[in-house]
């Protein structure tokens, strides 16, 4: 029974991934990404990591996909429909498969674990988050803050200091 569920989840995840990578249309790619992320959430459920699945769906499913769609709209340029792969794709395919095979081999050759998946009590997770992992937690918040400000500054439309930003003609 669990194996069946696993295969469904695997199909969803990998199918979504292949979709992202293979579609001609950017919007389809974004939607395929959503599909793949939900597949991953399913996998978390199989591993009894319900909170993670929820977080996954909430953040990835919601926020990240929306941002992607925004980006697609803002950078809508004429050649979207004709997106093709760059001329290096055969080499990329080979390298990616070799990489995957190497990773798989590593896992394959690692000593097998016979244990069953167990779910930790949710309370332990909460406690650990604020005791053992308190410092990384604070740093994570800092990362988010920096990313926030950075994104704003970089993507700001040139209203106030238009001259300063564009590179002066001389410097070329």
């Amino acid at each position, binding site marked *: 029974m669990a194996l069946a569920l696993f295969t469904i989840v695997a199909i969803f995840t990998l199918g979504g991934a292949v979709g992202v990578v293979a579609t001609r249309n950017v919007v389809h790619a974004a939607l395929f990404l959503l599909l793949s992320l939900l597949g991953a959430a399913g996998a978390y459920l199989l591993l009894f990591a319900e909170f993670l699945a929820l977080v996954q769906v909430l953040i990835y499913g919601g926020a990240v996909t929306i941002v992607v769609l925004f980006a697609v709209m803002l950078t809508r340029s004429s050649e979207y429909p004709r997106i093709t792969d*760059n001329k*290096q794709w055969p*080499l*990329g395919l080979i*390298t*990616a498969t*070799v*990489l995957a095979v*190497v990773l798989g081999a*590593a896992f394959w050759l690692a000593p097998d674990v016979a244990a069953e998946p167990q779910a930790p009590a949710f309370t332990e997770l909460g406690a650990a988050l604020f005791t053992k992992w308190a410092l990384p937690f604070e740093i994570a918040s800092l990362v988010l803050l920096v990313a926030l400000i950075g994104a704003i500054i970089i993507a700001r439309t040139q209203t106030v200091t238009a001259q300063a930003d564009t590179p002066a003609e001389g410097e070329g």
Partner: protein
Amino acid sequence: MPLAFLIPVFSFAACPLIILFQRWLPLRGAPLAILAIGGGFVVWALTTVSFLGAAPENPACAVSGITGALTCHFSTSWFEAGLPGVAATVDQAIHLDWGIIIDPLTVVLLGLITFVALGVQLYSLEYMKGDPRFGWYFAWQALFVAAMLTLALADNFLLLYIAWELVGLCSYLLIGFWFENPGPREAAKKAFVVTRIGDVGLLVGILLLWVNVGSFSMTDAFAAAASGELGSGVTTAAAILLLLGAMGKSAQFPFHVWLPDAMEGPTPVSALIHAATMVIAGVYLVARAYPIFAASPEAMMIVAIVGLITALGAATIALVSTDLKRILAYSTVSHLGLMMLSLGAFGWTAAVFHLMAHGFAKALLFLGAGSVMHGVGAHGDVDIRRVGGLRRAMPVTAVVFSIGALSLGGIPILSGFWSKDEILIAVEHNLPVIFIVLTMLTAFLSALYMARAMFVVFFGAEGEDSHHAHESPLLMTGVMSVLAVLAVGFGWIAFNWPGAFGGIGGFVFYDHAEKFHFNYVLGALSIILAVGAFVLAWLVYVRRSVSHEPWRVRFAGVLRVVERRYYVDEAYQWSIDRVVLTVSAALAFFDRAVVNDVAVNGPADVVRKAGVALRLHVTGHVYTYALAVALGVIGLAIFWWLRSV
């Protein structure tokens, strides 16, 4: 006696003084030079007196077993090189010192040099008057005389070599004295280079002797050579190498090309250097190092052959050349050949005697030529065809020149006859018959060209240039007449005069005193040849009754070859232009193109090209970098995996 080293020192001191204080010295320093050489002459006279008189008691003097002559030896240490505080052995160190040797040969030679140099310098006062570099002329004259005297006095080969080179330098400076025009410049360079080639042989010879004998001193070398300790191979090699040096300086056959060109220099220079003193350095070297030559018969034969070839060849060229100074130059070469021949024929006394006689006579002839030039006003060279019948315009010069010519021609009772006669005796006595025949021919030819020169210039028909000729001033004619007296009277010292003095043979000899004896057959024969030559020349050039046209036509080919000086000059020039310059140009190109561009710039270019090739991987596309990252990761993964397994 020990003060003999002062003779060269006076002139050595005079030279820098003149160079530095030219402007403030009277007559720009000329009297200083003359004073120095005069002092040298006085000291020479004193040395001779004390040498003849109280020499045997002097501790420094002893009768040398090899040369059989009384030799006095004085030396002071100069410097040591190699391991300090060690005796001078071939493997440890060399000890060099300044030493002088006084024996009959030196005394006689010093006399000749100081006397002729004094005469020439007095003569030059008049001849060089008004020359812009008057002071420099006397500076170089003083340096030359000093170097020549040191050469005559040197007791070790190294000091001899040093003086040898300095003499070469002075001849370079004096030949090229008027360096503005190209003629003297090229002649000076040619003289220095050709003698320098000879000096290579000399230096190698000296070093060869040092390697085998262990020291540079001549006495040790002679002892080793005479006692056979040196081994015949080394002795012959050393003798031939020394001969090579002598041939360079005394203008023997392959190296004679520079002497005729040396006439570009002022005439008093030619008189002093290229007649009386410098050119005899080679003969002096062979005479001084005679024990080495005597120890190897092959070397003696080579010396004789070289001497004969030079004498005969130069005599023929002298006969056909038209410029007065060139004739005298070739005659000098020819007479030097005779001296070498006599040395090769064990005629040591004869060679030294002829050296003296020729020195005085040739100096006289050159000064005569100078006075002709001075009188006619042709500063360059004097073409004898254009200058004829000068006896009326320049009576004293004519008389004096003729005496010189007659003496060298071998007319009896003059000094030339006696010394040439001695040589004939030596050659006839010790060398195969072919030598004596060719020597007789040379004697005849030398009489002929001397007569030709004399008659054409002074007694023949008037030439174009001889109209406004005028007699030279008293100073010049005075010096010439003194030399003329010597040219006449000098020969008589050969006889065994009553009293202790046993003729030249008794004083200057090699390992046994030779009493003078007159070989009547040879004497008569040489008189006939000489007088015949003069009569023939008189008929051809003065009376014009016998013409040499038919001979000139029949032997046209031979004549052209002789006129072109056997193409020796052209051969040298060709070898220089074709061989030496092309080789050096090729080498310079090789150096720049191969060693520099290929071997040195080559690696630099390879590095640069590699840099250009490696640069291409920066394509600017993000994905190529991602690919590179991926390959790196895969590589590392595999590498660690292999290490861990």
